[in-house]
């Protein structure tokens, strides 16, 4: 029976959104919010990658905007403010609505209001490239090493890499080195580059 990653993703997304809301609400009162901002970024980044993998493109697209905003905060280009907290909470609400719509087969609600709210924080001078790395299942068994490829990508510029562990199978299913490579088969390296290059 084929493994269906969607229920796992939905459960994890629910937990991540709850964590996002809690983290965002505490953000304004923190003297050093860097770790919380990182935590928020990672949560949105995970939702974005996993939702794209599960075919929830509207969720991935919406999440990309708030993830970019949080990356600007991490880089010091944008400050923590009540407006930022509001934008993060709006993004969490929008993702919940999009997931509900996706589960019910409904048309996804527009994310334009959220995008406009995020756009007010300014535009980035960086271009971001999102790369989905989905190698053949026999990758590891054939002796290939994804570490080498990912290290080469890192040499090209600032890079965030997320492994999509939602697709990792239970131990009972993995048996024999021939099967290796079938389960860690999705990465989403994200390369940033200066537009002026």
């Amino acid at each position, binding site marked *: 029976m084929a493994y269906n990653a969607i229920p796992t993703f939905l459960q994890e997304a629910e937990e991540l959104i709850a964590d996002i809301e809690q983290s965002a609400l505490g953000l304004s009162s923190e003297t050093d919010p860097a770790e919380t901002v990182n935590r928020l970024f990672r949560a949105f980044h995970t939702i974005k990658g996993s939702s794209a993998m599960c075919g929830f493109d509207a969720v991935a697209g919406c999440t990309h905007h708030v993830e970019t905003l949080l990356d600007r905060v991490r880089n010091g280009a944008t400050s923590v403010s009540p407006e930022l907290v509001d934008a993060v909470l709006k993004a969490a609400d929008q993702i919940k609505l999009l997931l509900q719509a996706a589960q019910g087969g409904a048309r996804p609600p527009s994310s334009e209001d959220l995008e406009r709210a995020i756009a007010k924080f300014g535009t980035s001078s960086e271009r971001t490239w999102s790369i989905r790395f989905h190698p053949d299942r026999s990758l590891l068994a054939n002796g290939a090493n994804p570490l080498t490829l990912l290290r080469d990508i890192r040499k090209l510029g600032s890079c965030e890499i997320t492994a999509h562990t939602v697709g990792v199978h239970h131990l009972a299913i993995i048996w024999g080195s021939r099967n290796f490579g079938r389960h*860690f088969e999705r990465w989403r390296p994200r390369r940033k580059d200066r537009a002026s290059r």
Partner: protein
Amino acid sequence: MTLTGDWNIGNVDDLRRLLAGCLDSGKEIVLDLSGVEGCDTAALQLVWSMRRTALQRGVGFRVAEVSRAMAEIAGSLGLSIEELNGV
């Protein structure tokens, strides 16, 4: 459970047997990975798979310690050891 040495595609079958045996004991799993000198994607996959299986069975799972080498390789693959502890 304590793992030491180098775990890679060449000995992942042995690693899988070790982890499966530990899971079958039904006791809470606490992994000490501080003695792991090296690993590859296949070995890390098994650790993540062990966590998934433990959670499915309702068995407690956490990583107590991890070697710098293993943490760096995991980081290079976009994996976070913190994720194993549900952080």
